[in-house]
């Protein structure tokens, strides 16, 4: 028995996963639509390569589908679990990517800033991704989770299975290295007045 499609948007990830495990076809579709962009974006931020990120996203979600029957609601967040799995999958694929192709970053929607601002944003995003690839793996993961995915330090500690103090240390060191790396490119990245 499938729930009405329009009510599914309000259902939490873990509840949808339980429905999925019980054969609800619309839960499979909603979870796919909801989780794929998040997982792929996070994989891309860790790897810097679109094709690799797609593979990791597919692998990570395949693991989620398979453990769905064993999922216990309220014990962990699906997002926490996915961040951890993506990081583990990326560990095997980490390699330096010297520059990210601008083509791999999509055109923004029509209601975003004009062409000049868009080009600057694209350039900054590209430069940041390049600089992230130069960080040690765990610093990169901590900085991405904190400053791009928007997790707080306790949440990051849970994903990375370390202490909050360790998270703070990783993000501080990571940001110092990023600032140093990017400061040499201030002019081309729109910091004309600095």
């Amino acid at each position: 028995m499938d729930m009405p499609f329009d009510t599914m948007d309000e259902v939490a990830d873990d509840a949808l996963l339980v429905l999925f495990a019980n054969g609800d076809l619309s839960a499979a579709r909603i979870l796919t639509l909801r989780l794929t962009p998040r997982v792929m974006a996070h994989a891309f931020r860790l790897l810097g390569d679109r094709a690799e990120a797609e593979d990791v996203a597919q692998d990570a979600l395949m693991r989620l589908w398979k453990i769905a029957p064993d999922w216990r609601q309220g014990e962990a967040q699906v997002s926490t679990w996915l961040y951890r799995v993506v990081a583990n999958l990326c560990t095997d694929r980490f390699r330096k990517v010297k520059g990210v192709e601008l083509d791999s970053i999509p055109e923004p929607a029509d209601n975003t800033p004009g062409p000049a601002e868009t080009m600057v944003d694209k350039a900054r995003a590209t430069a940041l991704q390049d600089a992230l690839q130069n960080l040690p793996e765990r610093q990169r993961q901590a900085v991405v989770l904190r400053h791009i995915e928007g997790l707080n330090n306790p949440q990051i500690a849970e994903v990375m299975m370390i202490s909050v103090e360790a998270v703070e240390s990783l993000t501080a060191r990571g940001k110092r290295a990023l600032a140093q790396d990017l400061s040499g490119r201030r002019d081309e990245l729109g910091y004309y007045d600095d």
Partner: protein
Amino acid sequence: MTDNIRNDDFLDNFFVAARTEHPVPDAALYARILADAEGVQAGFNAVCDTTSDTTPQGIFVRLSQALGGGLALAGLTTAAVAGLWIGLAAPQSIHDLTAGYIGMEAAPPFADLMPSLDLFLVEG
């Protein structure tokens, strides 16, 4: 401290850009991932369907073996044997029970509907 604040200000614009400028999945990726989901899900249903194919006769054979052989059941009353059969009901009926519960707004965890269900499925 001052350097950290300057670094944070400097990096903030990069982080803001990164939050919006990232690859988005294309239709082909969605299709692959959904196909994976549906394939795995079909495997869940196949497990239920397979075990429901276990006929009552199969259950009784296993019951009698558990009780020590074909003649062991002869010593049980019909009601006792029926009770054993109901207690080890085929998982398909449990699936139907779950499907009824899934109609609720907040679907409870599958296994929590019958706390000993896992044991039944292992034993069954």
